């Protein structure tokens, strides 16, 4: 008797529960896709166009919208909630719908000229402290910049070198040199940016230098000569002056009808090159490529050895040394064979 009543009670409770839920449950053939993060629901069910025509259009749409919204609300109410300033707030997950970005994703900055070179040579960055001890000022000072330690432009007394001109101002010489170094660095920085942005930057011409080499002097002369209104067209040469080398070529065209023999010669030469299958070897280029390759390998080997040392301690260092000796021996062996 008692058991029966319990069952009855349970059934009744279940019914009540169902009654309560009925007002918020919606039956759909296919489940909706939810993206609660962006408060979005997608109903993939087929809409019967008969129903649409039969019922009043607006009422049908509103009924459909109500059902879908109810399902979305049910989903949102399942989320974790918390109370913030007397309002109940539901935490939303990250939106799962992927939308196109507004701008292209960030690209890593291409390496600067120095970074390229350092990689080639296996030079690694060393962390330096910001402050260094200045012995003259007796305090810790910045390594670089304003009020730096050991600032050689701020000295109150400079020894004049024996070779220097006694009338030359050594103080202004140092400041000038520093200013030039700063300017050069700034220029290089801009050139790096230009290379990164693939903007064509003009050649810099001649950078100021303490000692100019012969080639640089020649280049300076040629630059000076072409810097006239007529681009150096009417500029005379000195008596024993040679024609400037590497000054760029001007395109010249052969006359359409004229020297047949030279033309024939050219065509024959071209054919000869085409005919011989063996590619022409540019020795300078090949040697440069080889040297660069060796540099790279050496840097990589050095790099690898250093990494090993960090982990395995002494063992790695010794292994590296052994490898070096082996290489040298290999070289000698090759020599013998050649004999």
């Amino acid at each position: 008797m008692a058991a029966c009543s319990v069952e009855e009670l349970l059934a009744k409770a279940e019914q009540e529960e169902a009654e309560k839920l009925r007002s918020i449950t919606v039956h759909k053939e296919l489940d909706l896709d939810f993206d609660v993060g962006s408060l979005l629901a997608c109903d993939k069910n087929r809409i019967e166009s008969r129903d649409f025509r039969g019922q009043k259009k607006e009422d049908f749409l509103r009924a459909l919208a109500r059902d879908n919204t109810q399902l979305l609300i049910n989903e949102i109410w399942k989320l974790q909630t918390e109370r913030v300033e007397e309002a109940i707030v539901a935490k939303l997950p990250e939106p799962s719908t992927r939308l196109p970005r507004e701008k292209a994703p960030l690209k890593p900055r291409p390496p600067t000229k120095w970074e390229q070179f350092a990689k080639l040579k296996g030079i690694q960055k060393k962390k330096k402290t910001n402050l260094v001890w200045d012995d003259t000022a007796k305090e810790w000072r910045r390594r670089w910049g304003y009020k730096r330690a050991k600032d050689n432009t701020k000295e109150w007394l400079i020894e004049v070198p024996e070779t220097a001109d006694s009338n030359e101002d050594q103080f202004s010489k140092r400041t000038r040199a520093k200013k030039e170094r700063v300017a050069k660095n700034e220029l290089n920085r801009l050139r790096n940016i230009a290379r990164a942005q693939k903007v064509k930057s003009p050649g810099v011409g001649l950078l100021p230098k303490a000692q100019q080499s012969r080639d640089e002097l020649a280049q300076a002369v040629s630059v000076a000569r072409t810097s006239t209104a007529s681009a150096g067209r009417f500029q005379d040469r000195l008596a024993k002056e040679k024609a400037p080398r590497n000054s760029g070529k001007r395109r010249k065209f052969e006359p359409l009808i004229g020297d047949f023999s030279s033309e024939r010669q050219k065509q024959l030469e071209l054919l000869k090159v085409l005919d011989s299958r063996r590619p022409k070897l540019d020795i300078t280029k090949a040697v440069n490529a080889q040297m660069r390759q060796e540099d790279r390998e050496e840097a990589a080997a050095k790099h690898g050895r250093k990494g090993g040392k960090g982990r395995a301690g002494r063992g790695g260092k010794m292994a590296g040394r052994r490898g070096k000796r082996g290489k040298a021996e290999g070289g000698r062996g090759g020599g013998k064979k050649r004999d």
Partner: protein
Amino acid sequence: MTQLDGIVKPKTRRSKRFMESRAPKLTEDVKRAMIMKGGNTSQIVTEALKDIEFFSKKTDCSLFLFGSHNKKRPNNLIFGRMFDFHVLDMIELGIEKYVSLSEIKNSKCPEGTKPMLVFAGEAFDTDNEYKRLKSLLIDFFRGPNVSAVRLAGLEHVLHFTALEGKVYLRSYRCLLKKSGCRTPRIELEEIGPSFDLVMRRTHLASDDLYKLAHKQPKALKPKKKKNISHDAFGTTFGRVHMQKQDLSKLQTRKMKGLRKRKGDVVAEGDGQEPKVAKVEK
């Protein structure tokens, strides 16, 4: 300072900040939309598109809506979006029926509420053009990206129905009624505006450009956690590394006879446990 052609350097702090705000970012800002009214000649439409690209760069808006009207295509709305200052998608929709916001007289939603978006109809899932339209509309109407919502503030629903080649846009106010349990029952009340739209011309991005636009930067992708594995039942396994245990200090049952005396040498036990043990987290 040294100057180099082709590189524009911001001269002041303010302009530098401005340039940075316009540069691509890892997590992007909310997209902004630009709404334009067109004239009624076709040449203007083409010129307007050029203008849109220009203005999008000026105002940093990546969404645009262009309205025009002519005899061939009356009541035209062009929804579009940009990627990297170029037009990605453009979809032309014609308005067949329109009821404005002010025509329906009842209480409205406050401005700036984040709407709930509901899409209904097979077409939004099967047809390529409708898929893009859906994505575009989400982009337009989703509002800012938020981490939490006030439950009582969810009162605006935008419902898009694709049926028989038309798109019905309806905007409802959502009334939360008591249902007897925790989740409320929903009643809807139309507040306008409502549109019956027809899709006209489309200009969709090629698939590879579309894919490129969706590409997520590496830094935003979730990082894979090391040394954690899962089995078929979804149980997480981790690895715990332990120090060598000192068994001599192990506390066993206290007994008078086992008490340690001074000067007593404890024999070292060889049978140590293995250092690494697989432990269920």
